[in-house]
């Protein structure tokens, strides 16, 4: 497995875990009305965990294959990145429009922002998922 594919796996799994924890908290609050502590502190904690997790794991794979880590993206890897980003863009646009539509369901400003955040998370998962699929297909 190439360095860039490992990197895509790391980002995909980190976002999946952190996004899952965020979604679980949203469901807990919205459907069961259970709130543990300050929501901003919880959110910032998740963002910090995501950043630290990504850095630590990327440093680990860079130490494993330093030559590949130093090599800049080649044309095939750039093409894979572009294709995956284009797909994620459509997901993000759809999520944005759906989030706007929730205003008509009398969602609060906070809930709309949660919908937008959910769209960003799904778009990111789509991007890294598509990268992994394209790396696998062309391997």
């Amino acid at each position, binding site marked *: 497995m*190439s360095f*860039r*594919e490992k990197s895509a796996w790391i980002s995909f799994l980190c976002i999946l875990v952190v996004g899952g924890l965020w979604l679980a908290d949203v469901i807990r609050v919205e459907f069961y009305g259970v709130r543990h502590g300050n929501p901003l502190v919880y959110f910032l904690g998740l963002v910090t965990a995501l950043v630290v997790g990504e850095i630590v794991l990327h440093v680990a794979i860079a130490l494993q294959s330093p030559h*590949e880590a130093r*090599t800049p993206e*080649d*044309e*095939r*890897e750039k093409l894979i990145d572009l294709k995956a980003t284009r797909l994620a863009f459509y997901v993000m646009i759809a999520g944005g429009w759906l989030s706007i539509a929730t205003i008509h369901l009398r969602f609060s400003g906070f809930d709309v922002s949660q919908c937008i955040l959910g769209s960003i998370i799904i778009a990111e998962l789509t991007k890294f998922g598509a990268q992994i699929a394209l*790396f696998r*297909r*062309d*391997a």
Partner: protein
Amino acid sequence: MGKTIQNTIRRLRFDHREMTQQELADKIGVTRQTVNAIELGKYSPSLEVAFRIAEVFGMPLEQVFQYEVKRG
């Protein structure tokens, strides 16, 4: 009617003292995985990379890559 780009990179590597995919990748500035994808015909390289590959083997481009039209 399908069109495919065939190549002889694998044989040329073998003829050049069994050059590895990594060695070729280092010479042309791409990753080993990209060389593998080109060899297997799963990725068509840019003209620039194609010329660099031909230059490494000291061959004209058309002896490294062939454009074939498959009928049926």
